[in-house]
């Protein structure tokens, strides 16, 4: 009995198992990749991107000259952004709705670590998916746009818009993730995400026809995530940097806000 008693008390120092950020990231990878909803979202993103890219490429042959071929690859983002946002939202609201969040925070009491690890994993998964689907879409549309192919010699017409579209997809997922952490409820977080990404740009655009007194609203609308994405991915655009900053600022603000709330809130 005495011998048995001594064993567990040595646990604090002798156990080789302890928390580290890398391990929490690994755990979050396992979590995200072992859910069917993740693979559905990524599959839908891939199908939409490649399918719409093919349609735009086909249609662009009838466009008046000067339509940049890379636009066919980045434009489907207007549809896939919602899937990215939803993926980000359910990555965390699924934990709240099922109670999994209590297991998560019991294993990793530092909530900032959980938030960072989750964000990193969502970013990597979205970035890799967008990269892969873009590569496939480029290859698939190449024969269609062979008259005026993507100009790889000019980064502004090729790699910059493609990289910006990866950044944008990560941003959209982060917006979902941020709302998810803040609102905790799946439907609420998705509604907020769709509202910010999809509905607000429409609302702001309605003021284009209004008088000069209303133009500040139109001006403010340029800083919405969707506008940021359009500007950042515009081939040869002048405001790529402003667009990129917009894409970074939104998730940064949301995730910092989420962290502030998360630190003190009861799980």
């Amino acid at each position, binding site marked *: 009995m005495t011998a048995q008693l001594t064993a567990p008390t040595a646990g604090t120092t002798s156990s080789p*198992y302890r*928390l580290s950020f890398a*391990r929490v990231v*690994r*755990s979050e990878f396992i979590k995200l990749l072992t859910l069917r909803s993740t693979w559905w979202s990524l599959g839908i993103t891939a199908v939409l991107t490649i399918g719409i890219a093919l349609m735009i490429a086909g249609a662009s042959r009838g466009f008046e000259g000067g339509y940049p071929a890379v636009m066919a690859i980045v434009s489907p983002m207007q549809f896939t952004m919602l899937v990215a946002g939803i993926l980000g939202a359910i990555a965390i609201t*699924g934990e709240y709705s099922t109670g999994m969040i*209590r*297991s998560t925070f019991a294993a990793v009491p530092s909530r900032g670590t959980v938030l960072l690890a989750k964000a990193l994993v969502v970013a990597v998964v979205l970035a890799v998916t967008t990269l892969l689907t873009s590569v496939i879409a480029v290859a698939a549309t190449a024969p269609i746009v062979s008259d005026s192919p993507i100009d790889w010699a000019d980064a502004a017409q090729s790699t910059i818009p493609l990289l910006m579209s990866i950044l944008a997809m990560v941003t959209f997922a982060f917006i979902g993730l941020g709302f998810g952490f803040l609102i905790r409820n799946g439907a609420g977080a998705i509604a907020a995400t769709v509202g910010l990404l999809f509905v607000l740009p429409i609302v702001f655009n309605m003021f284009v026809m209004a008088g000069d007194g209303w133009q500040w609203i139109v001006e403010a609308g340029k800083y919405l995530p969707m506008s940021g994405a359009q500007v950042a991915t515009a081939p040869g655009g002048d405001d790529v940097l402003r667009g990129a900053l917009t894409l970074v600022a939104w998730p940064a603000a949301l995730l910092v806000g989420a962290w502030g709330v998360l630190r003190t809130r009861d799980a």
Partner: protein
Amino acid sequence: MIVAENVTKRYGSKTAVDGVSFTVRPGTVTGFLGPNGAGKSTTMRMIVGLDAPTSGRVEVNGSQYGQLRSPLTEVGVLLDAKAVHTGRSARDHLRAMAATHGIPNRRVDEVIALTGLDAVARKRAGKFSLGMGQRLGIAAALLGDPRTLILDEPVNGLDPEGVRWVRDLVRHLAAEGRTVLLSSHLMSEMSQTADHLIVLGRGRVLADASLTDLVHAWTTSTVAVRTPQASDLVAAIAGPDVTVADPGDGTLLVTGISAPAIGDIARDHDIALHELTPRTGSLEEAYMALTEQSVEYKTKDIA
């Protein structure tokens, strides 16, 4: 070792836990009792840092939970069987939990075998019965081979074999020198499992004592006596503390005097005894007496 010092938790105007202090010691099974809404689960959540106390402090193995460098090897916790994503398989859930601490998959398969989940480990947790969910929650609590275990209603929904298994498991873990805090509403189960009891009522500690002390303090021991000379015996044992109840079935229920004393008096007075049975109170009786005033959600007696 779990130490709570003057812990209070308020949710808005409602005080769930009100200045609670206690120590849960290693090497024993400590039962956590109390009516629904007494603050047991809230206290357990505060121990593992899920809820922050409004005031006071809770420490596990000498540290606040949030300061632990390897929480899973220090504390294994089952708060409820539903702390699992329903879309993930049991094994994937455990793998994800284990990964946070670098615990190898070998250990994941060990706890799966230990909790009898082999057959369903690759099924999604959302399809589990309550009992299977409990087993998965216990498996997760055991992952890090922790020094301290906190189990909230672990036998809820388990079959009799499972109930017995949990009892043997927690007794074994305590015998190894671990700290075990266990809540349950099943008094008979608790009286077979726990050495020490902490009873909460309306957010306060009503009792913190060993099982035997608690039962002794809150129940009256009676002695059942059968004798053909009932009136003689009643007269012989009469005293200021002694009460005798006669339910009319030939058995007298005597309180205030011990069975040996009754036996001695009967021999001195030449009274024949056909039965002399000491009846100690049960934990259930002690619990009912103790929490009578503090039951939050009281049912009406059926007339």
